[in-house]
């Protein structure tokens, strides 16, 4: 009975998030509250309704994920104020000297690196408005710059433990170190990025030729003035602490397996102590809705796990997968990929994790390589590229383009993104089969 109710609550939350019926955080928190109310009020009349106690719920929240996201948000908030990303993007525009492909390649590289080491949505929020302006100034359609940027941000995010939420959630769950994650996922992320760039080069070849060689000096000046470095002192301090923090990620293993969340938070606190931003302003800039969203989601899925609903589901998946670890890994990758294209990839990943645990425990050889977890990460990160609803950067880019007066339809995004998604998913599958 409790398992059924927990599943029903999860499905409601999942539908509300995936189809944007409610704010994502409100939906996740409503789900968490429903779990508690059914447990405490329902459970006091009918003991079978006990889903998850408050104390148990706290054990299901992955605090490493929460602190890691919090720490990186503080970094992003400080770095964003220095205008460094726009400055770099404008320098790429200048260096391209009228060669559109060179400009696109540079911007894509910047997006990929930014998304790998910082929050992907923030990178999109900072780079896409400038990319739209550059594309309008040089006379190409903004989709030609923005769609590849969004796709690359999702691919680049798969390269590191801190790049994309599914990477952070799965990486933290299996307790993998930053270096270990990088060794396993960065090579395939780079391969997928190069493949995506080649596909984009073919897709938009006519548009690249169409770009204007003579751009109005007034427009260039406007772009330049919007792309100047602000507050150099803060920038140098932020870069110094960022270097220290990333070094910390690499050596954390030597310090009794220090979790990445502790490293990120230490770096962020050090940065705040050195830069001394206005603390109230700083804390306002941290997006607490994201953190509450994750907490709510962990509790809702925890309810399903505690009541045995996930185990029931995992058993069915294990029957389909059989004894073959490779079949199970491919099944996980493609189910995660297709699901992430249709529904929100974060709740899917949280719910799929216990299933991945079950498969890893029951299928011979799966535990040694962790192939099922890697498949889940690749599927969720790369599959989110298929549709406009697949991941947060896609949705944010859609809104930014709409604000600029360029209507990106579901069909148009699918037409441009599907070739890249299929190519990268196939490459990821081959990688899994060869590497593990």
């Amino acid at each position, binding site marked *: 009975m409790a398992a059924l109710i927990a599943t029903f609550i999860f499905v409601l939350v999942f539908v509300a998030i995936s189809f*944007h019926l409610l704010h994502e955080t409100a939906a*996740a928190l409503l789900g968490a509250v429903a779990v508690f109310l059914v447990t405490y009020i329902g459970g006091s009349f009918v003991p079978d309704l006990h889903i998850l106690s408050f104390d148990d719920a706290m054990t299901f929240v992955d605090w490493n994920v929460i602190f890691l996201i919090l720490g990186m948000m503080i970094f992003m908030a400080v770095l964003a104020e220095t205008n460094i990303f726009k400055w770099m993007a404008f320098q790429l525009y200048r260096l391209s000297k009228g060669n559109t492909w060179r400009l696109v390649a540079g911007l894509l590289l910047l997006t990929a690196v930014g998304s790998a080491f910082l*929050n992907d949505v923030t990178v999109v929020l900072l780079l896409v408005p400038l990319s739209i302006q550059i594309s309008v100034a040089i006379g190409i359609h903004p989709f030609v710059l923005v769609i590849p940027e969004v796709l690359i941000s999702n691919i680049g995010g798969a390269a590191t433990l801190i790049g994309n939420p599914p990477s952070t959630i799965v990486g933290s769950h299996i307790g993998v170190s930053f270096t270990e994650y990088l060794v396993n996922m960065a090579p395939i992320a780079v391969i997928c990025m190069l493949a995506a760039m080649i596909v984009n080069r073919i897709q938009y070849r006519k548009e690249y030729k169409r770009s204007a060689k003579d751009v109005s000096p007034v427009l260039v000046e406007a772009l330049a003035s919007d792309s100047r470095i602000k507050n150099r002192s803060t920038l140098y301090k932020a870069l110094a602490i960022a270097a220290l923090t990333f070094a910390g990620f690499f050596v954390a293993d030597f310090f009794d397996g220090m979790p990445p969340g502790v490293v990120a938070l230490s770096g962020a606190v050090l940065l705040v102590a050195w830069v001394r931003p206005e603390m109230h302003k700083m804390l306002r800039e941290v997006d607490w809705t994201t953190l509450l969203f994750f907490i709510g989601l962990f509790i809702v899925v925890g309810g399903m796990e505690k009541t045995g609903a996930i185990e029931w589901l995992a058993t069915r998946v294990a029957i389909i997968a059989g004894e073959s670890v490779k079949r199970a890994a491919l099944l996980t990758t493609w189910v995660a990929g297709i699901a992430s294209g249709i529904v929100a990839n974060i709740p899917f990943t949280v719910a799929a994790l216990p299933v991945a645990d079950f498969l890893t425990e029951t299928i011979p050889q799966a535990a040694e390589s962790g192939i099922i977890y890697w498949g889940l990460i690749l599927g969720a990160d790369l599959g989110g590229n298929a549709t406009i609803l697949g991941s947060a950067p896609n949705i944010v880019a*859609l809104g930014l383009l709409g*604000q600029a007066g360029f209507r990106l339809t579901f069909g148009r995004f699918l037409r441009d993104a599907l070739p890249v998604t299929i190519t990268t998913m196939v490459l990821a599958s081959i990688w899994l089969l060869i590497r593990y």
Partner: protein
Amino acid sequence: MEIILCATRGGEESISAQYKAIELAKERGARLIFLNVADSSFLDRSAAAIVVDIQEELSKMGEFFLMMAVERAKACGLEAEAVIRAGVFRAELIQATKDLGASMIVLGKPGGGASRLELAGFDAFKEKLGQETGVEVVSL
């Protein structure tokens, strides 16, 4: 002097609306003001971590499009002005019309790929806008 308010962004429909507004302003000897509204309400349902001042980013992008619109008017021999506001588009457009004392609003109609439902929604919005502001609303 009569004031024409042209709500604009950077897309093709907006550019057509800008040229229409320039033409109308020249015909009537009216003052032309381009308006852009930085509306971040598209983020309202997402839990994605937003740690940048999105209003500021949108305003900068809007200023860029306004500058292009003013340049277009100048190329057509008309000195136009530009106003940027932050908030929800519909409310800000109504308020700007009242604040500036505009007698006409020019809008770009949703173009390529817009569904019948969206076009119907636009027509309803245009009618409501006319009723709430009491000014003529031109769209193309």
